[in-house]
């Protein structure tokens, strides 16, 4: 299940798109153009990229409050995504959802989620649905290490294993909740070790190594499609920035500069770039071209978002209910 050359380039593109997108948000947020809470994914790109690379457009994902990476990796266009972050009518959710609720039904993205642990039951429902409808679709469920302390983790893992649902649980273990480190949340080292409690395979992978993530995900997805049930994949990684932009603590109260720097050295993109060059998958120049194209696409998305209109005030009252007679 090794990725092909094209797939490797694809992984690079996805990671770099996430990175540059998020870096642009840093700037936009600082300038007050993006309202609300933007929880950035910088440093964790390999997880979303590796997992979503093995999914099709028909497959589902549930995401988290830190959802930009998942949404980009699953294939939502940058224009509607950026517009959503600006709260514009052209956004994926017409501006009503914002960063924590980006959804894209066409791409199987069942929503970022403001409730930590909220996505797990929804993911198993999507997987169950695929099983009921016999479609061969798979659902991947992203959640954080701290979210795994929510009771929904237990209930969802158990139901998924019991009914052999085609779901892949992806725990993004970045070592922290907001400020609370893993050792203050649980005595165990590996969330994946909890899989045995559900008679489910559990694996730990280097979440900063996109190929490792890809391979583990490919195996889990294969298992899921074969009707053999769920897998729990724990990806060890790190978030570089504060819990969200504008977080007054920006991490300083609960973690050291050294810790942050050690992880920056393990940058998933830098590592992967090196590998691509070493293995002669791509040349430096090719990668630079890709980077430029991405930057341009992001600039275009920002322009699109800026030029888009805000929804009209009356739209606040729309979409609360599906109108009767609307198509099923």
């Amino acid at each position, binding site marked *: 299940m090794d990725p092909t050359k094209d797939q490797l380039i694809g992984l690079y593109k996805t990671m770099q798109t996430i990175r540059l997108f998020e870096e642009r948000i840093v700037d936009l947020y600082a300038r007050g153009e993006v309202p609300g809470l933007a929880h950035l994914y910088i440093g964790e790109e390999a997880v979303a990229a590796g997992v979503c690379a093995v999914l099709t457009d028909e497959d*589902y994902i*549930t995401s988290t409050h830190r959802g930009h990476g998942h949404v980009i990796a699953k294939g939502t266009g940058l224009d509607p995504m950026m517009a959503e972050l600006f709260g514009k009518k052209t*956004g*994926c*959710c*017409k*501006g*009503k*959802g914002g960063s924590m*609720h980006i*959804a*894209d*039904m066409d791409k199987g993205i*069942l*929503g970022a*989620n*403001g*409730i930590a642990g*909220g996505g*797990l*039951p*929804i*993911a*198993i*429902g*999507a*997987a*169950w*649905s*695929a099983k*009921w*409808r016999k479609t061969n679709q798979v*659902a991947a469920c992203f959640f954080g290490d701290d979210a795994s302390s929510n*009771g*929904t983790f*237990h*209930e*969802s893992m*158990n*139901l998924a294993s*019991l009914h052999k649902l085609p779901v892949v649980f992806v725990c993004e273990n970045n070592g922290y909740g907001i400020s609370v480190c893993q050792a203050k949340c649980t005595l165990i080292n590996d969330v994946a070790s909890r899989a045995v409690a559900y008679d489910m395979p559990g694996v730990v992978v280097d979440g900063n190594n996109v190929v490792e993530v890809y391979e583990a995900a490919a195996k889990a997805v294969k298992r899921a499609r074969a009707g053999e049930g769920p897998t729990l994949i724990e990806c060890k990684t790190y978030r570089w920035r504060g819990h969200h932009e504008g977080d007054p603590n920006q991490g300083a109260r609960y973690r050291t500069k050294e810790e942050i720097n050690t992880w920056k050295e393990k940058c998933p993109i830098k590592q992967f770039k090196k590998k691509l060059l070493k293995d002669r998958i791509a040349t430096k120049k090719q990668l630079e071209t890709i980077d430029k194209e991405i930057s341009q696409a992001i600039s275009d998305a920002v322009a699109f978002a800026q030029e888009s209109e805000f929804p009209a005030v009356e739209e606040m009252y*729309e*979409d*609360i*209910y*599906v109108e*009767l007679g*609307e198509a*099923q």
Partner: protein
Amino acid sequence: MREITYCDALNEALRQCMVEDERIVVLGEDIGCYGGIFQVTKGLLDEFGPDRIVDTPISEAGFIGACVGAALTGMRPVAEIMFIDFTTVCMDMIVNQMAKMHYMFGGKGCVPMVLRTNIGAGRGTAAQHSQSFHSFFAHIPGLVVAAPSSPYEAKGLLTEAIKNDNPVIFVEHKRLYTTKGPVPEESYRIPFGKAEIKREGADVTIVATHALVGAALEAAEEAANDDIDVEVIDPRTLSPLDKETILSSIQKTGRLLVADEDNKTCGFAAEISAIVAEEAIFYLKAPIIRNASPDTPVPFSPPLEKAYMFGKEVLMDSVRRLMAYA
């Protein structure tokens, strides 16, 4: 017309819908071979098999959330929460997910699921199995809240709930399960947001829900002996709410009694009262009376539980108090 119980009417609605539409699955505790704690799902396992009639472990957040995910992706799940008291263990899935997704997603994606549950005291099951906090769901935008008062409403509203694309909290009533009434054999839908005037009258309007609709009709009979002409309105869905029917009744009668089994404070009775105080106050000849459950947990002891509950007598007393105003 043939008469069947409220329980059997619900069962028939489920069965007819399931025959028609493969996307309907039913999830809940003891809904399979046990037939549901109140026997609403009796026989469905045999007819539709364990893939579509799924007994679940005690994981309400898990399986209600799963229904949300399944509904978003093309299924039409019907879940049973054994008592409304237990919706508290899956409240996030109801309030923050099921109710809000369509809105948060900007109108894309919908959550066509039904969460069936029940309210009501009177079975000696005390504070954690006898509550009636259905008003809370009416308080949360995005949910439809159905409140069937008879076998006829039970079947028609459940059929609508299953076929409707919105998420529905379907609030049954424990004491009604065994009551009988006329129910058509064929499938039919009662539209949401249309109150039914169960009895016309010119002197007093009673807006009543669930089992209190029956009590209100009895009170109306009794009142008729005293030449008091009572109109009884059953909203049928608390959300959407048919305000118009209520307001025009008030314009006629000028007297309002609201009868609902939820706790009084911030309950559904308060909402009806407040709407009328806001939009039709000058038609009123009397204060608005609320007959609601007292603001206490439901006590176990039989005489206390009996005192907790109320029916025709209490309504009659309120009607008389209202008629004291000319």
